[in-house]
């Protein structure tokens, strides 16, 4: 009996090994570099309709398959894409774009101005519930149409003729051509979209795109496959043949796949490098870092004691040793932040507004604050809670800062953490004292960061802080047509923000990744997103 069982078992094992070998035998290697890129985007995208997308996962795919009026080039400047030229009126309120003659959809249909009009109005239509529609609010009548107070017909975007698009803005917006490179401004094939409102839910004949690649396969929650789009006007510049995205959530597995040559890239902006691997990769020189437009900061609830006192806030902000945090904890080449706007927009912010780890100044501010509050000593301060969303990195940083405040200022702070959705809910409803947050820029202009704090009731403010001078500077800057003057206004506004400190900036984000050595020319913008149009394998 035993012998028979053993024989049977051995046969079964042998069979499975044989079958396994069968399944694995197709990795034929060729001499010439294969132009097939394999990436991991971690999860199923929220939506592959450019008007609905609101996340970086979707953006990673959409930036390769669609194209807007402009595209951000290798130097971070907008270059003509679907629009071969454009004119701006004297008052900078009207843009006229000329769409290329040879701009086509992947099914051969020409790209028309109507495609843009349809797409923008579709995103603004409240019935479609686009969560990123507010990106279009720069256009006249857009906000009214989206909130139901106005009509879609009154939105300032018009197809003058088949290849001419006229856009009317609310204010002179010098960064408008940056915005038109953002996915909410992409066109869709209006003919197909009108016939088949579900065109964007699957790959297929109706999913047509106008960018360097077309989507040939979409296996939900599993993988997406792109192929070079031969009808693209600049197809000669595209060297990759295929791109395959897998959706592996686990950073450890992605790392193993990268090492086992099953992926060509591990890290931002597509997925993440697991934190335990960063040090080793940095030491071996394999790790690549690039500053991106993002700031990690702590928000103060300025309506809660003692954070309503500006000196206490200054004391807490000055007493943080940012250099140690980025060197010991995050270790990704991040830059200590002593300003709100990242250096990719204001290069002088690498220096910032105050000294990092300025314990002297912190103590002086603490004393002033205690005097104003009528307290003798830091131990008499009401308890302060520092909250963050549950995450290993945030926890480590919070613990370090808790320790810094205790040893430098004698202030005791308790830590608290919640799951992301619970945490963000508390923050938005003001149920916190000090809360951790980050902000990543959507477009390359400082106002993106400053306008967060313009209105006390603003959806992303959370600090309950408002300053009329700050507000006025931002509003005036929207109407200023002279670039130098406008920049100065924004700098002045930031100075106010850094003087009143409703937030304590900690560090500026970087993208951290590893990639195969022979992969070239993947362009990562200052905002941290990637374009594969020019990429190739050597």
């Amino acid at each position, binding site marked *: *009996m*035993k012998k*028979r*069982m053993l024989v049977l*078992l051995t046969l*079964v094992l042998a069979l*499975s*090994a044989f*079958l*396994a*070998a*069968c*399944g*694995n035998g197709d990795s034929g290697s060729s001499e010439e570099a294969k132009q097939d890129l394999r990436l991991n985007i971690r999860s*199923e995208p*929220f*939506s*592959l*309709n450019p008007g*609905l997308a*609101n996340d970086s996962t979707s953006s990673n795919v959409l930036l390769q398959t669609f194209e807007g009026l402009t595209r951000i080039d290798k130097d971070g400047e907008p270059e003509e894409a679907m629009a071969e030229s454009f004119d701006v009126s004297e008052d900078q309120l009207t843009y006229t774009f000329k769409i290329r003659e040879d701009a086509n959809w992947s099914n051969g249909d020409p790209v028309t101005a109507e495609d843009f009009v349809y797409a923008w109005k579709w995103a603004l239509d*409240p019935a479609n*519930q686009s*969560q990123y*529609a*507010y990106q279009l609010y720069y256009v006249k009548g857009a906000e009214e149409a*989206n*909130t*139901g107070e106005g009509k879609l017909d009154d939105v300032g975007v018009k197809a003058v003729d088949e290849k001419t698009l006229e856009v009317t803005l609310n204010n002179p917006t010098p960064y408008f051509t940056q915005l038109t490179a953002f996915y909410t401004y992409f066109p869709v094939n209006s003919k197909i979209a009108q016939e088949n409102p579900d065109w*964007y*839910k*699957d790959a297929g004949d109706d999913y047509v795109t106008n960018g360097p690649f077309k989507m040939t396969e979409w*296996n*939900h*929650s*599993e*993988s997406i496959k792109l192929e070079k789009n031969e009808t693209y006007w600049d197809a000669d510049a595209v060297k990759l043949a295929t791109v395959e995205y*897998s*959706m*592996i*959530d*686990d950073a*450890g*597995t992605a790392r*193993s*796949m990268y*090492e*086992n040559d*099953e992926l060509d890239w591990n890290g931002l902006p597509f997925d993440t490098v697991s934190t335990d691997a960063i040090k080793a990769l940095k030491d071996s020189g394999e790790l690549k870092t690039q500053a991106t437009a993002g700031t990690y900061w702590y928000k103060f609830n300025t309506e809660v004691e003692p954070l309503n006192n500006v000196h206490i806030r200054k004391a807490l902000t000055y007493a943080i040793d940012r250099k140690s945090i980025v060197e010991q904890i995050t270790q990704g080449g991040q830059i200590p932040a002593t300003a709100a706007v990242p250096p990719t927009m204001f290069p002088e912010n690498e220096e910032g507004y105050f000294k990092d780890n300025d314990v002297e100044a912190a103590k002086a501010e603490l004393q002033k604050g205690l005097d104003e509050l009528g307290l003798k000593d830091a131990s008499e301060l009401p308890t302060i809670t520092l909250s963050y969303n549950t995450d290993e990195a945030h926890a480590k940083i919070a613990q370090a800062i808790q320790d810094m405040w205790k040893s430098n200022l004698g202030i005791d702070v308790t830590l608290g953490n919640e*799951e*992301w*959705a*619970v945490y*963000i*809910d*508390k923050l*938005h409803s003001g149920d916190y004292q000090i809360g951790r*947050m980050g902000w990543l820029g959507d477009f390359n202009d400082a106002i993106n960061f400053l306008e967060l704090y313009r209105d006390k009731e603003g*959806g*992303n403010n959370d600090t309950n802080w408002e300053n009329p001078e700050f507000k006025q500077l931002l509003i005036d800057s929207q109407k200023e047509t002279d670039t130098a003057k406008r920049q100065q206004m924004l700098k002045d506004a930031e100075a106010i923000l850094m003087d009143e400190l409703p937030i304590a900036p900690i560090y500026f984000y970087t993208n951290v990744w590893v990639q195969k050595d022979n992969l070239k020319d993947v362009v990562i913008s200052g905002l941290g997103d990637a374009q594969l149009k020019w990429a190739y394998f050597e």
Partner: protein
Amino acid sequence: MIKYLTRRVLFMLLSLLLIVTATFFFMRLAPGNPFTSEKQLPPAIEANLNEHYGLNDPWYVQYGEYLLRIVQWDFGPSFKYKSQTVNDLINEGFPVSLVLGMEAIFIALAVGVLLGIIAALKHNKWQDYTAMIIAVLGISVPSFIMAAFLQYVFAMKLGLFPVARWGTFSQSVLPAIALAAGPTAFIARLTRSSMLEVLSNDYIKTAKAKGLSQTTITVKHAIRNAILPVVSYMGPLSAGIVTGSFVIEKIFGIPGLGSHFVKSIGNRDYTVIMGVTVFYSIILLVSVLLVDILYGLIDPRIKLAGGKKGE
């Protein structure tokens, strides 16, 4: 038999109703809603979204509408994945988890029962100890460690299998083994102890005395009775394995149903939470029913209708 089945099905429906109700209320208790995000939505848009998905209606209206939908097997749209409905998610994810689960169950049963029988027959000899050490390892080592270990040894070092993803047979071997590890060990122990108990019974002695071979005794007589605890374990086990394991699916990048169970809670994706919970409950209830029926088939002494022993 028919009366028995009818009664069971009625109880199943009742349980299902209770599960749906409890889940409905508990998930609404958590702070946050499907649209909470870092860049807070303009209030007008959020109001719109809530209106569209009926989140503004009073709770009993939402509850009633939801029950009506479930009866028609329509779980609604997913809040998080705009291109798919919950039915889509289940239809795509379940077959994947099912195939993986069946492979794992096959391995667990085959290897587990085998190990258990060998251990029982060679009680207190080296085969027994080896089998039980393997069993303890299988139960104690967490599944993600087992998964990472298998990936490291068999995929990266030996290059026999790919590290992750799904589609070919060779991609399914490592995850199936990782998934089967715990259940194999448990089944081995169960089989062993119940075999030992059965082997000490009088009728086995009679069989030996009659001169039957060891094989015949084991296969024809002992196993049938020893297998009963394993059968009861298989009920909830199959339901659990077949609907997907979150950890294994995450580590091997398998697009099964398991990840949706956990992610939907973080996403506050109400419809997905309800959908997968209802789906899982149905499978669980059906497996338990099947197991009970199987009992009656394996051991004629067990009367399903129960209660009227002396009839």
